[in-house]
């Protein structure tokens, strides 16, 4: 595989505590890498480290062959990474439209049109403050904001938390379409069923390390063995 995005030997943590203890992974253009594991094993920390919120004490992060491990988050966004965080995923005080277009690249409005048909809530609530949306609606807004950035890599942290089943299906359809166009995804998800439908690669974290990994759709039994204590 020629990797669009790869990370090797990542060691990172907060203050004196080490949370990531040498994590490696890779994803090619048009692929989805799922990061699985129980709560508190370092999945969100990994995503924050990949976006540059957490400096890595060791390790390398490469996007399209370029070392980006030293870049701050705004510069990683400019390098072509979209990040949809697990918590506080939207700007509550801004309107839905401002959330979508605040720093959107050219062409975002055209890319929004088909997405707005899939997620009509966004058009209906366009001028409302995003803080008035439900948790699941905020996740949809965050996902769509990421989708219209049209970047080479998208990091999704728990994108389906609180999202209704039919909207999860629509999200999956968008991921598939963007993969077909060459975008790579790294997805942290509790929802194993989504991984079973979408994953091209997967890895399971435990205590800040990769304890299992594979390519293709993961087998539920193999994953559950690692996820359950």
């Amino acid at each position, binding site marked *: 595989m020629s990797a669009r995005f790869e990370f090797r030997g990542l060691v990172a943590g907060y203050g004196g505590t080490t949370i990531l203890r040498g994590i490696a992974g890779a994803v090619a253009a048009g692929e989805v890498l799922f990061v699985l594991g129980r709560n508190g094993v370092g999945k969100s920390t990994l995503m924050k480290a990949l*976006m540059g*919120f957490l400096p890595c004490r060791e390790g390398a992060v490469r996007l399209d062959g370029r070392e980006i491990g030293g870049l*701050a*988050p*705004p510069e990683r*966004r*400019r390098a072509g990474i979209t*990040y949809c*965080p697990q918590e*506080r*995923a*939207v*700007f*509550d*005080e*801004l309107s839905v439209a*401002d959330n979508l277009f*605040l*720093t959107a690249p050219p062409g975002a409005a055209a890319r929004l049109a088909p997405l707005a048909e899939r997620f009509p809530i966004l058009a209906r609530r366009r001028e409302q403050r995003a*803080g008035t949306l439900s948790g699941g609606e905020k996740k949809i807004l965050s996902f769509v*904001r990421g989708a219209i950035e049209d970047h080479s890599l998208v990091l999704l942290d728990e994108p389906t938390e609180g999202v209704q089943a039919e909207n999860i299906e629509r999200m999956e359809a968008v991921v598939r379409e963007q993969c077909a166009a060459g975008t790579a995804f790294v997805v942290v998800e509790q929802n194993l069923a989504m991984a079973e439908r979408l994953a091209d690669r997967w890895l399971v974290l435990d205590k800040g390390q990769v304890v299992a990994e594979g390519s293709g759709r993961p087998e539920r039994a193999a994953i559950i063995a690692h996820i359950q204590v």
Partner: protein
Amino acid sequence: MDPLVTTQFLNIAFGIATLAVLALGLAIVFGLLGVLNIAHGELVMAGAYAAWIVQSAGLPYALAVPLAMLACGLLGWLIEAGLIRPLYARPFDTLLATWGLSLLLRKTAEAIWGLGYKSVALPLPGTVDVLGAAYPRYRLMLIVLCLAGVAALAAWFAKSGAGTRIKAMVANPDLAQAVGIRTGRLARNAFVAGCALAGLGGVMVAPLTPVHPFMGIDYILESFFVLVVGGLGSVAGLVAGAGIIGGLGSLVSAVADRTAGYTAVLVIAILFLWLRPRGLLARA
């Protein structure tokens, strides 16, 4: 209307309008960015000295506006780089460091210009007839310019991309960075703008008040009261706070005397801190 009543109304409007502009810089620096810059009042003082310097040199008074804003903006840039950023997220240390800076700035002004009061002549002398009352031309001009300036800034903050990016940064700094906003640079620019506005405030009030090294203290106290009463982070709060503090101060001063005016302002600020600590119109 009785000319005396008209004059008092205009005085109240003047108190509110100038206070709104004086508190504006602090509303950006403290209200939006959360930076406790105790030396903010000394920037007002520096702006007032800039006005005195320009006038003493025989130059047109309007030149004091860019000079004061540039000088205070530059000071702000240095303060941000030297004190604020290294002490990021350490509010008590920031307070101590900027308090030390305020002493330094006062003593520097004292060393250069001495303790004596400097007086700045009115750049726009004479009076205008307003509904039968002869009102000072300069004060009337300030009322109009201050209200227009605050309204323009409010519109810019509500509509412009930069205003929206500032709101995004204040509301959710991590997400702002994730969508590409260079928050460090944006916060620095906003801080510098707030300091430049303090300099502008100094130029505005210089002809109406004695210019001396300790004048900043009064302004920063009143500006803090405006933010306490109005609440942080919204232009509506700033205007409401300036309306109550400036209006009450001017009204009580007119009916009784200056001391009663200060007392009324202090009492209302304490009541707000006690009963409604987030102010009238705090950001959600």
